[in-house]
């Protein structure tokens, strides 16, 4: 059960980063503020899901191998994706000019999404040269429980993202706009 949840949470978080990359590209091309609101909601929700996934991974590692942390492929990927999402949120929140922060964060999300396959590839390569046992063996050939868990979590994820995006959009409309575009320079 913990394994199922952990593996599905990893997939959802990775999908979250990939979706964030796509949405960010579209935001950069069109400048549509609604896409930025959705991107922000995806990033924060992915961070929450990823954190639960990391804790589940630690728990799983404790139960299966009696150590709290192992540099196992899935857990490492989740940690890296989680750190990339942190980068996105930090860039967004630490600029004085909101419009610039949004654009810079979108560029970071886009570059992270492009880097994602390279990270996964290097992890796989690392695993073949430094073999380490993963929790895969406990699942067996049966694939449907994990797909079902993944589907349910993805639906929950999409629901939370939509709820957040609606709330943020309403909040943004009511708040006065800040940061004049003329002062916006590095």
């Amino acid at each position: 059960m913990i394994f199922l949840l952990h593996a599905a949470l990893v997939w959802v978080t990775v999908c979250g980063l990939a979706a964030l990359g796509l949405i960010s590209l579209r935001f950069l091309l069109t400048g549509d503020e609604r896409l930025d609101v959705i991107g922000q909601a995806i990033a924060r929700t992915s961070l929450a899901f990823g954190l639960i996934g990391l804790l589940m991974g630690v728990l799983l590692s404790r139960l299966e191998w009696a150590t709290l942390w192992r540099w196992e492929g899935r857990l490492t990927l989740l940690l890296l994706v989680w750190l990339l999402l942190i980068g996105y949120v930090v860039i967004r929140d630490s600029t004085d000019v909101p419009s610039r922060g949004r654009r810079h964060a979108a560029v970071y999300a886009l570059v992270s999404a492009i880097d994602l396959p390279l990270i996964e590839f290097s992890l796989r390569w690392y695993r073949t040269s430094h073999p380490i046992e993963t929790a895969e063996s406990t699942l067996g050939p049966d694939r449907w429980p994990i797909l079902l868990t993944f589907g349910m979590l993805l639906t929950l994820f999409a629901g939370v993202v939509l709820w957040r995006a609606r709330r943020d959009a309403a909040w943004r409309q009511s708040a006065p706009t800040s940061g004049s575009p003329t002062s916006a320079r590095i």
Partner: protein
Amino acid sequence: MTFMRQIFTIAGKDLLLEVRSRERVVGMFTFAVLVAVVFSFSLDPTVQAIRIAGAMLWVTILFAGMLGLGRSFTLEKEQDALVGILLTPVDRSAFFLGKFLANLVLLLATTLVIFLVYGLFFQLPLGGAWAGLGMIALFGCIGFMAVGTLFSAVAASTRLGDTLLPILLLPLLFPVVVFGTSATQLLLLGRPLLEVYGNVRMLAAFALIFVVVGALVFGWVVED
């Protein structure tokens, strides 16, 4: 001005500034030597340095590089020099590639110093594998500086400044770390160049992808 000349003008400007002030080179070189000294005294004497040399070399290259990168755009921020450059009809991609080229030259010089210092302090057999090591260092540094130049511009515009740079760069540079360290390690242990061919190819792919991506997206970073 043609695209290539724009690149070389920007890079030349940065390198000229560096030749005159020497602040980044001095900082990076001294940092590299100091890290090597710290490693020498913090390692247990029973540890064979050559077994972990790949890791030590790349950790030093990454952090020395980030030290230099931090200055790359804070320099432009002073007295709004960046606005001046953006007002000239320089292509945004050429601007990025120029900055990248200047940063790359500085990092490659630092990397050479790092290899020599570690070779001296830890008696590493650099001579036998110099061609392979050079190739790995070159492609690794290109990839590092492509991502680094892009996000040093981002970090410079935030309140956190250079503090943000490692947070942004290290997770992105994971492939460079994995392929760079293992290849360097294998070559130093006397393995043939053919054995690390895959690593070199991956480092080259990473470098190519992010030089192109950086040049394409840089406009969104500096424009308002």
